């Protein structure tokens, strides 16, 4: 650079100290939290094993609603995974300087959300012990997956995305692993030594790393768009009324980014509070994230309106049954609650610059958006399935 910042001396050690602090010291409440979460996870695992032994019937699903909360959760978590790729990928591409403290938080979310999303696929399967039928490898069963099935595209897309986002999380971590290898002297050291790949910080290594990141960043952004498009096509290509729509792919992508950015805001807020990172994550960042949320809110509202408008105006009975059930039928309460959470409140609040500069406020909006988006995913799945084209066995469903 032509004009190096003067006298950075004391600042860089401070960065090292502050950012490694969470790894080195642990408050007792941390173990409490881990214990509580582990307990919940164990309960979930127990529930799954019960479902495994007895059958999918435990989910309260029944015809005509064959998909329920599991698929909704899958979409939600895949959507949540768009947080990292969108924020860190797109912002890296555009060389936005303010991205720096946010990228890692977001990338970790991507990685973890994808693990959870994959789990939901397995919860959902009727014969989950036969899941390997989906892997294309030559076998004595002479079964080959059907690549014409959207679910197969889905499986491939999620696999690609999971691999790519793991790599994408890992790449910028390598120099940090090297730092931790040199700074942290406990049982984690060998782990860091392996993971840092012998990183020294030579200019050659920096160049290789930066080249790789420059290549992978645009690729993973494309994968991100394709993944949620494919999840959208899972529904769009079907014959189910109100699913059969061309708008689903872009709608899913924008919705995913919407809830993903919301999640990152939550993460930013909590981590900032707990680990006192106010020096790094400032009001400015919440302001910028608030603007992003405003953008996705508007985009999503536009797409949702376009979707509902075309159905409403077209007035095809099969589709109208679904829309009526949302607007004024049995699904009206969650629908309007969702509209408030996802569109109205964020729109009203985030347009105020003063509000965007309040981290707590933006965080609350993030929580609302995520609750709303989860409801939206459920509403996307259940009402259309509840009203099949033959009106004989209309029936709704309540998750157990």
């Amino acid at each position: 650079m032509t004009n190096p910042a003067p006298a950075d001396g004391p600042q860089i050690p401070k960065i090292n100290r502050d950012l490694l602090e969470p790894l080195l010291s642990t408050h007792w409440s941390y173990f409490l939290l881990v214990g509580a979460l582990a307990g919940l996870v164990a309960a979930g695992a127990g529930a799954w094993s019960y479902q495994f032994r007895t059958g999918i019937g435990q989910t309260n699903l029944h015809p005509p609603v064959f998909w329920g909360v599991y698929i909704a959760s899958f979409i939600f978590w895949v959507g949540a995974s768009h947080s990292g790729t969108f924020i860190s990928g797109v912002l890296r591409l555009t060389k936005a300087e303010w991205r720096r403290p946010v990228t890692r938080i977001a990338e970790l979310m991507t990685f973890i959300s994808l693990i959870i999303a994959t789990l939901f696929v397995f919860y959902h399967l009727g014969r989950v012990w036969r899941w390997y039928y989906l892997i294309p490898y030559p076998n004595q069963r002479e079964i080959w997956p059907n690549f014409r099935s959207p679910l197969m595209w889905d499986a491939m897309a999620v696999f690609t995305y999971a691999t790519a986002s793991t790599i994408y999380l890992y790449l910028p971590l390598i120099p940090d692993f090297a730092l931790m290898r040199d700074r942290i002297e406990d049982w984690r050291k060998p782990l860091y030594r392996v993971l840092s790949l012998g990183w020294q910080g030579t200019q050659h290594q920096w160049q290789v790393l930066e080249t790789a990141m420059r290549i992978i960043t645009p690729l993973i952004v494309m994968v991100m768009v394709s993944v949620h498009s494919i999840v959208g096509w899972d529904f769009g290509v079907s014959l189910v009324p109100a699913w059969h729509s061309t708008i689903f792919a872009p709608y899913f992508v924008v919705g995913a980014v919407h809830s993903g950015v919301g999640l990152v805001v939550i993460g930013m807020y909590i981590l900032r509070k707990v680990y006192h990172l106010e020096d790094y994550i400032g009001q400015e960042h919440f302001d910028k994230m608030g603007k992003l949320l405003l953008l996705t809110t508007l985009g999503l509202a536009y797409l949702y309106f376009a979707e509902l408008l075309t159905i409403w105006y077209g007035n095809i009975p099969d589709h109208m049954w679904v829309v009526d059930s949302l607007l004024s039928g049995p699904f009206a309460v969650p629908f309007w609650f969702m509209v408030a959470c996802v569109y109205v409140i964020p729109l009203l609040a985030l347009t105020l610059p003063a509000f965007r500069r309040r981290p707590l406020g933006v965080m609350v909006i993030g929580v609302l958006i995520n609750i709303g988006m989860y409801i939206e995913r459920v509403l996307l799945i259940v009402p259309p399935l509840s009203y099949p084209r033959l009106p004989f066995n209309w029936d709704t469903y309540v998750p157990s």
Partner: protein
Amino acid sequence: MVDVTNNGTTLFALFELSAPVKALVEKLQQAGIPLERIEVISPLPLHDARVTSPPRIPLYALTMTGGFAGIAVGLFFAAGTALFYPIMTGGKPVVAPPVVGIVSFETMMLLAIVTTFVAMVIRLRRGSRHAVVRDSRIDDGAVAVSVQMDGGDTQPAAVEALLREAGAFEIKPVRKDRVRMRRDAGKDAEQEGLWLWLGCAALALSSITAYSRDMEEQASYQSQEAPRRHSPPGSIPLTSRAIVSSAPVTPDEQLAAGTRVFRINCVHCHGPEGGGDGPVAGYLRDYRKICRPLMSNDSPWPLSMRS
């Protein structure tokens, strides 16, 4: 690659982050030090010190190659394998272009990204064998320049002067054994890495093989079996799916029927001629023992069945 163990001196100098590293490197080059013996180590990428880098890295080309390989895999999956077993489903063509596009896109991205990553890891590891001392002060905001010299008399002094002139706040020679130790540490890391990966693989394997359940193992299936009475030995079922004809059959017809059954059930191992050379035979453990009676001339097997 530089042999770091030759008899020479390595000078290691620390600078402020704002030091004019690029100018220094150029001066060192003018002083006769080849570029590959100068190493600049920094806690963040120094975009202006790129003079020290080796020729351009073929990562882009590798990414493209990976991408094209991915397209090929996608085409093979979505179009090629569909043609092997052309099963029609729901009026969709056997090779559906949009589907091929979607599948190929995903495999293309997958292979492109993974290839880039693997290539990068290989380059990184190769780069790290340049083997230089790492100083913890680098992470706290310093740039290190290490210069290897091959034993000329005046060189170290001249280089040291250049380093000082550029503003080094510390210059120290590095002993050879120190350098080599680094390399061994790299080896250790490799071994640890191997164990780590083996452990992960074992975990993954155990998770795959954890459960198996089949219809045949269920009580519901046995309840279907229970009420079936065994027929007396030698009897012929009247209304089952077995092929029974009330009309008298000629030996030729019997032979033809037998051939058909043989072709459906036996050929895989015994081969079309009963020679024990069916496609599956090679996988059997003692296939010669199994097939021997069929190969001998005095076997009861009708060799005339060949047709």
